[in-house]
Every structure is written in C-alpha cells, then in structure tokens.
C-alpha cells in the first residue's frame, strides 16, 4: 500500500489530537454536570477510529456503537455541533435528542452511534443491502466492541452478510473489555476475528477472515482497513479486529475494579498519539513545530466548540415532539 502523503499524515495526527482533547474536555464538562447521561470516551482508541475512517471514500458508509465521538470527528462532523449534542442543545448533530451515544450525520454517511450493544449490526447489513440493490459502488464500515461479538445480533448479521455477499467491513474494536468483563471471561474465541470462520467455507466463499491489527498504530489500521474495504467492494464481507485499549473507564464513574493501574499504565506509554507523533518526527525533520501548532489548534477548536455549545439554545417543546413520525 502506498504511504500516504505528509499532509494526509498530519491530518490524521490532527484528528487524533482533536479527539483526545475533545474527550478530555467532555470528561470535565461531565464532572461539572453540563453533560448528562452516559458518557463513553474514546481515549486510547483514536488510532483505530481515525485510521479506519480515513480508509473510506466519501460515498462509503460508517456506523458504530455508543462510543462514537471519535468516529464522528474522524468522519468530519463539526466539533461544535458534536459538542452541542453533548450539552443537549438544539444545534447538536441530533438536535439534542440523541446525546453522546447517538450522534449521526446523514450527509456524511455517518449512520450513527447506537446505545444497544449490537443493535446497529443488522442496520449495517441493511445499509449494505441498499447499496448492493441499487448497484452503487459503496461499502459499509461497521465498528463494534469486543463485547458486541457475543450478542445474537452479531451472529445473525454476519451470517446474513455472508449469505448475501454484502459489502460490509465488520471491524471489532477489541479494547479488551466489555464494561468490566475481559474478552477471556466472555468469549469462547480469544482471537475474535476467528469467528469469521463460522460464516465461511474452505473454498473461500462467505465471510473472509481478515487480520488482527495493531490498533494503536494508525498506519497499520489504515492499511488493513483499506485492504478490507477493497475486499468488501469486490467480494463481500470481511471481519477484522483491531487490538486497542481504552485508557479511561467504560463510562464516567467506573471504579475500574476489573483491571490494575499497572495494566493501564503499560498502555499509556504505548498510546496511539505519542507513538504516531514519534513516527512523524522520525520521518520528517523539523516537524515538531508543526505538530505543536496542531496541538494548540486542537485545543482551540475544542474551546470554540464548548463556547458554541454553551451559547446555543436549548431544545423547545416543538423539538420534543418533532420527528416521531414523518408528517
């Protein structure tokens, strides 16, 4: 796979830093009581989201679970409108009716974050079916957690996609835990990608078993997902697994009794952003000042987003009752 240009790499770096700063700010706003409900941060998983979404064409599709801020920002949603959604404002991407778990942007073919574990997997199959039915050259990237691979929806959706040869890349973001339950304690298969074998035949038909990727390496993720997308475009569904780690709790207020501080620390050092920054520094002499500038701009973009959100109007009674049905 051709190495992306410098501008592209810097843009990925920008996205990863933006996501990190955005999430840190969300945590603060949550502590201040300005964000309500459940808040699931993407901290630690930035390389997976950014690398995977970057592999999509504009007319391809992406759908994910409730840990969706990173995917939304990587897909180019305006941080202002995303932050406004966090604060429940009518300028939010979902008009303040979805919240942190339910961001979407139809224009950008971002079909949403979904709060029911696995609930979006059949939707992904259906979106892919529509593309196939209308003979559009479009692929669906469906992200899910490791925990979602244990739910019935996973089995039914992957199997149907294999039977109908749907253009879907099923991407497991294996951050090692579903809430407090590790993969070892929840899944018969430790290498989750092996589940693809259940929907494939020896002659290579059905679901393709894709690679397990180093999900902390944005370049590796991008390469693997790009290949997977080409496979899906030409031949049908493929399952891939990105090995990553969530550096914060499952959601806010998680006492994290299921893992040690040392374990978390060990992943902080190999965190995706620091790693990628080093790659860029090694590759491009004197790039530090550019990276520093990107860091500052990300901070500013998040502050602008917060300001925009705080100055936005609350939804009204009209918003409460609109869009239940098509009028």
């Amino acid at each position, binding site marked *: 796979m051709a190495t992306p240009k410098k501008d592209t790499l810097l843009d990925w770096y920008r996205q990863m830093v933006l996501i990190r700063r955005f999430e840190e700010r969300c945590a603060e706003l949550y502590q201040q009581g300005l964000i309500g409900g459940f808040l699931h941060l993407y901290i630690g998983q930035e390389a997976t989201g950014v690398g995977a979404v970057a592999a999509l064409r504009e007319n391809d599709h992406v759908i994910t679970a409730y840990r969706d801020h990173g995917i939304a920002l990587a897909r180019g949603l305006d941080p202002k409108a995303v932050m406004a959604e966090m604060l429940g404002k009518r300028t939010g991407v979902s008009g303040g009716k*979805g919240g942190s778990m339910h961001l979407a942007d139809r224009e950008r073919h971002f079909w949403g974050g979904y709060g029911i574990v696995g609930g979006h997997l*059949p*939707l992904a199959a259906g979106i892919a*079916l529509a593309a196939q*039915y209308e003979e559009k050259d479009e692929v669906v990237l469906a992200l899910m957690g490791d925990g979602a691979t244990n739910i019935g*929806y996973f089995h039914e*959706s992957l199997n149907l996609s294999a039977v109908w040869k749907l253009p879907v890349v099923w991407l497991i973001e294996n951050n090692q835990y579903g809430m407090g339950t590790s993969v070892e304690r929840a899944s018969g298969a430790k290498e989750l990608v092996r589940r693809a074998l259940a929907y494939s035949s020896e002659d290579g038909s059905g679901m393709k078993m894709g690679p397990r990727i180093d999900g902390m390496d944005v370049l590796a993720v991008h390469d693997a997902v790009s290949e997977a997308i080409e496979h899906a475009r030409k031949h049908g569904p493929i399952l891939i697994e990105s090995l990553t780690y969530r550096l914060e709790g499952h959601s806010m207020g998680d006492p994290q009794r299921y893992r040690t501080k040392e374990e978390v620390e060990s992943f902080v050092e190999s965190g995706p952003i620091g790693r990628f920054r080093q790659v860029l520094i090694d590759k491009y002499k004197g790039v530090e000042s550019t990276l520093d500038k990107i860091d500052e701009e990300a901070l500013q973009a998040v502050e602008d987003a917060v300001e925009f959100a705080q100055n936005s109007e609350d939804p009204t009674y009209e918003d409460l009752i609109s869009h239940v049905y098509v009028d």
Partner: protein
Amino acid sequence: MADRPITIREALSAALREEMQRDERVFIMGEEVGVWGGTYAVTRGFLDEFGAKRVRDTPIAEMVIAGSAVGAAMAGLRPVAELMTINFAFLALDAIVNHMAKVRYMFNGQFTVPMVIRTTTGGGKQLGATHSHAPEVLFAHFPGMYVAVPGTAYDAKGMLKASIRDDNPVLFVEHSTMLQRRSPVPDDPDFVLPIGKSDIKREGDDVTIVTFGKGLEWSMAAAEQLEKDGIEAEIVDLRWLRPLDLEPVFESFKKTNRCVVVEESLPMFSVGAEVAAQLQNEMFDYMDAPVKRVAAMDNPLPYSREIELMALPDAQKIVAAVKEVV
C-alpha cells in the same frame, strides 16, 4: 372497476404485487417468502415474477430480518419484511422498538424508515402456548411506528398498500385463521385506505362493540344473535391500533351509552383497558353502564381443543357481556 370477492390471502398478495410493480424499491424478505411461496402462501409465484433480488429468502434470524430492513429503509429502499408469525417477533423486539420506531426521532429526523413488517397473529389452532399469542397491542405501545390489524379482505388490501406507500414504519398484523375470509375488493391499483381510520362495520343503537382483527368476526356473529333478541349492536372496527382512532367510538357511544370491547389479546393492559380509560375520560356524561371487556383468559393457551377454545373469546361471551350492560 368492479369490486370482486376475494380472500384476505388474495388481497394481501394483490397489494404486495401491485406495490412491487409500482415501485422498484419495494422488495420482500423473510423466512420462506421465496422458493416456498410464503408460509401462508401469500407470496406464491413472486419469486418467478420478481426474481431473487426482490424476493429474498432469509436465514431463520428474526433480529436481522427486522434490523436489516430498518437499515435498508434508512438507506432509501422500501422493504416489506415478513416475520413468519408474531410469536417470533419477540426475538426482533429490540430491532422493532429501539430501532425501527426510534431512529428517526433519536437522530432528529435525519432518517426516514419507510418499511413494513408483515406478520400473522392469533391462537385457536392447537399450537400450544408459544405459538398462540395475539400480542399486537404490545407493539402499539410505542410511538414512532404504526400497527395495522385488518379484519376483512377489503381492509387488508387497502391498508397494506397504504402501509407500503407511507414513509413511516408499520407492523402489519394478519390473522392466521382468517386468510380464507372473502369480501369484495376493488381491482383498482390505486385503491388505498387512509392510515389510522376506524370503520363502522355494523350500525346499531343499543350498544357499541369496539374490536379489531379476529374480534370482528366474533362480534359480527354475536350481533346476529343479539338482533334476534332485539338488541342492535354498532360495531366499530379499529383497523389500526396506532394511530388509534376513537372518534367513531365516541360518536357511537353518544348514541348507545354502552360499550363492550372485544379482542383476542390477553385482558390485562389491553386495548380494552385503553378504550375504557379513554371513554371514561371523554364520555363520562354519556355513560349508562360500565365498559365491558371480552378478551382471552388471563392464562397461557393450551394444546387440547376444548380447553383452548374455553380460553378464547367467542360470540357467546360477547353476547353475554352485552346483555350485562343493556
């Protein structure tokens, strides 16, 4: 064009065929809809006529049948997904309630979900407790979707066509023991009934019977018996549990001042409960007697014929309930 007496099965077939001919985006999917021709033979011949792209057999996988129809509808197709019977819709409850009915609202109108889930309901066929539910009222609980419960061939055709053409998601519930019932139905391919309109199926001044689906058949039989005793029942067929149109019920009640609600569902938290509550709120001044409810017994349905029938409503039970209030 003249109306022709056809069965409910034929009416459903005709509605589906006409809508598939009219709009390329309409397709059907579900267990045994294609090669088999539909478990209830509604889609017999469709595979030959429309091909495998538009007549899609699925694995036995209710969650993804419903859920992928939601995704396909969001992405611009107009799926008609079939769940073999409503008993199996329980497996798809999340896809129906959390996704089919909610994605439009939750994402602030960004998505439209123009789809229909067809399914069959009802007991009385000696299939035991898991296969004999009539739980359509459960689904009527949720805003964001419609629930259709036709009781005649005329309604089945006009309502199914309306459901397919509408941009909102519809759970379309057919009664498995009524598919052979016959009534005159227009051939006109643009015969479409409005969504959410009840219908007076029989006029009378003495008591208002509110019902739907199979209850319509029992109520009509009861009305004939009551007529012999000089009691004229007015029968309001709800046709839709959501949107629920009680205006004709209120109008009728102003005249009869008495009401019996008839349904096959279980009695607790039922259509009867809803109608009774709304009547006492809206029509208190017109009330001459308590609202009576005839429903299935609050009990699972058994296999053995006699005791199964014992647990279900019938014309006699309706007659008895009416006689308590007139």
